């Protein structure tokens, strides 16, 4: 505990800001149902009530639902799904990437070429294609994005562990007769972790934006579930009237992305051992 406190005290203001933002989002996501005055898809008034009128702090949307409530529920759905997806992407990409370097030879070749093929297709188009075929449900959404994103994780995990797998302690473990799973989980993974954790933060943002983009296009999280991407689309007509309400979800996305990146930068800086020189 004391160590964590010391670490926080040494953090630059940007990182602290990022941490506060992330913690706030998590709290809002967890306590969403308590914080919100209405139900997630409850129609509470006429459509497009302006901000601050009739007790609606952010007004109502195109179906007369409370914007603030939708925004808070949106945090739950979007962040939750993005988090699960990123975890899955790291599980797939990380394990395969480390396996590719540890086993080498044809395993490495096969996995590498497979990833090349997947990466050759633009990710958004590929996702749209598959989601159109399979139909959109949350599990499919998570799986598709996780697989597509795991290609990037694979590349990073492979690149990082390439430098570790040649070190003497890995050779010593091989010569001891250790199996592949020991070498991956005990020898390589702990040393590859810092860059992977940093990448986790970045990937989380990308996945998050990607889900919002898909939702905006109508193939992401389906109504009436609240989601920041589709909220922007649903209320897009208001923008033409000079109303900024539809941009609130977009701002929520932007703020979280900035916060996560601040923290990731700090983490990378700490683990890479870069010093500030004059």
């Amino acid at each position: 505990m004391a160590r964590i406190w010391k670490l926080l005290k040494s953090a630059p203001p940007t990182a602290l800001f990022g941490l506060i933002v992330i913690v706030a989002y998590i709290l809002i996501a967890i306590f969403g149902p308590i914080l919100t005055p209405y139900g997630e898809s409850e129609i509470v008034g006429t459509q497009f009530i302006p901000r601050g009128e009739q007790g609606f702090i952010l007004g109502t949307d195109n179906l007369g639902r409370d914007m603030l409530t939708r925004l808070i529920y949106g945090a739950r759905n979007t962040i939750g799904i993005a988090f699960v997806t990123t975890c899955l992407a790291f599980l797939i990409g990380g394990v395969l990437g480390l396996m590719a370097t540890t086993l080498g030879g044809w395993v490495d070749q096969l996995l590498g070429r497979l990833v090349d093929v997947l990466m050759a297709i633009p990710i958004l188009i590929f996702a749209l294609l598959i989601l159109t075929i399979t139909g959109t449900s949350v599990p499919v959404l998570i799986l598709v994005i996780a697989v597509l994103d795991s290609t990037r994780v694979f590349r990073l995990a492979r690149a990082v562990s390439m430098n570790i797998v040649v070190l003497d302690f890995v050779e010593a473990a091989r010569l001891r007769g250790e199996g592949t799973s020991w070498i991956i989980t005990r020898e390589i993974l702990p040393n590859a972790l810092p860059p992977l954790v940093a990448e986790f933060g970045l990937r989380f943002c990308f996945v998050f934006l990607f889900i919002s983009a898909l939702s905006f296009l109508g193939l992401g999280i389906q109504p009436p579930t609240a989601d920041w991407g589709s909220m922007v689309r649903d209320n897009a007509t208001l923008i033409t009237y000079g109303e900024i309400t539809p941009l609130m979800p977009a701002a929520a996305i932007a703020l979280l992305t900035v916060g996560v990146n601040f923290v990731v930068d700090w983490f990378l800086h700490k683990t890479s051992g870069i010093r500030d020189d004059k």
Partner: protein
Amino acid sequence: MTNNGGNSGEVLLEMRGLRIEGQSEDQWNEIVHGVDVTLRRGEVIGLIGESGAGKSTIGIASMGFARPGCRITGGSIVFDGMDLRVASDEQLRKLRGSRIAYVAQSAAAAFNPAHKLIDQYSETPVQHRVKSRAEAEKDAMELYRRLRLPDPENIGFRYPHQVSGGQLQRAMTAMAMACRPDLIVFDEPTTALDVTTQIEVLAAIKDVVEEFDTAAIYITHDLAVVAQMADRIMVLRYGDLVEEGNARDMLANPKEDYTRQLLAVRSYKKEEAPPDESPVPLLEVRNVTASYGGRVTVLEDVSVKVGRGRTVAVVGESGSGKSTLARVITGLLPPSEGAVLFDGEELPASYKRRSRDQLRHAQMIYQMPDTALNPRQKIRDIIGRPLSFYLGLKGAAREKRVRELLAMIEMDPDEFIDRLPGELSGGQKQRICIARALAAEPELIICDEVTSALDQLVAEEILKLLQRLQDELGVTYLFITHDIATVKAISDEIVVMLQGRVVDHGPKHDILTPPHDPYTDLLLSSVPEMDPDWLDDLLADRAARKARGEKVFESADQ
């Protein structure tokens, strides 16, 4: 250079009460505690000490510079009447490269691989407007010739990777001489080189420094090398001056204990182990030929026998194939021909097909203890893993054995068992590597340059430890090294390798007493001795033998 003794001539550089701090974990710690250095024109001063003594930091401070993460906090640095601590960046820029030059330890890392040697040579004089580009090139060829680089007219038009390490180091010295500076700082210029190459570089540096009457600061951890180069020696330890004096006087009559220790460092000799009586040697490498990727042959028809309880040293310079031999024995590189026999039984060529017991019997200790230990595992787990993996020890029994092993390598179990490798010094890490190898209860331990990354005094402690363990446990060593001093200290038998072949082998006594095989002779005679006249005598002797028409080996690629 030795003739002017450093007593005459005007003072060129004077550092008084120099204090330098280094940063670690957001804290500034003083690493040089008020050291005085006085250097006269044409004088060569040797800074000697172990790593962490502050010798490089002081050397660089003579240019008014501190490495990133360091800062000069006290004292004065006066170069030829100018105080470098208050000098402006512009003044310093004019000075560096033109009047003070620096030669780094690793020339390979200090050259830009994307530019030709002569382009990098010309950069400084042209920048400082001392010479035009054409003059600089002409001058470069002249210096290359004086530094006895082969083909001086054309070698400058090669890229750094196209010349050898020793040649690169000489090209770097030429580069430092480009503006005919008053002072050159040599920072361990020969440490990374083989002994036979080291001689060439030392002789070349000595010649040019003498010829142009350049003052020099020569930084090294090797007292025998500094004996050849310096007029005056300063012994440093932990950022303090231990002893300073005329080179000859100090070597003949050291005053401080620490200096005496450094002088005595190569005197350790083990007693010869009893010969192996059994008919079958513990390890036999039989007519092994091996290559990387089937193209470049690195081992050719190599046969080595290692008797039980004995220490066999495989000695050779870089590229001799000695480390490849270790890879063949451990099964990392299956040989294309020949076999490895352990206790009379042929081992499968690849480690992947060897049984757990076969793997257990031959353990390995690596050159770099930093990379040989997983930085994320605690000492308990590092030593404990072979115990549970090979011997099935668990829980309290395992803990007990780990503690026994730590005691065996003279490290306090309570203090060290919960530490991570990053919290240990280099020598302590190497001890942990030894404990890890011992944990498997092996019969053979392959030591691959285990002392070359360590300071001399620490290295000697490690050798003594290994010897004690052999006496107590009867373990057999195959010792791979390029360092003749280590060979003399620890071996019972010697195998000399050159370009993938065994050129000489036999009991230590036979190999070390003349007559030698020509290459063994070159190798042995190239090891620097404490005698300040050693280099001059050796070069004179080689020249005389050449003049008599004898064939003299002067480098490994002849």
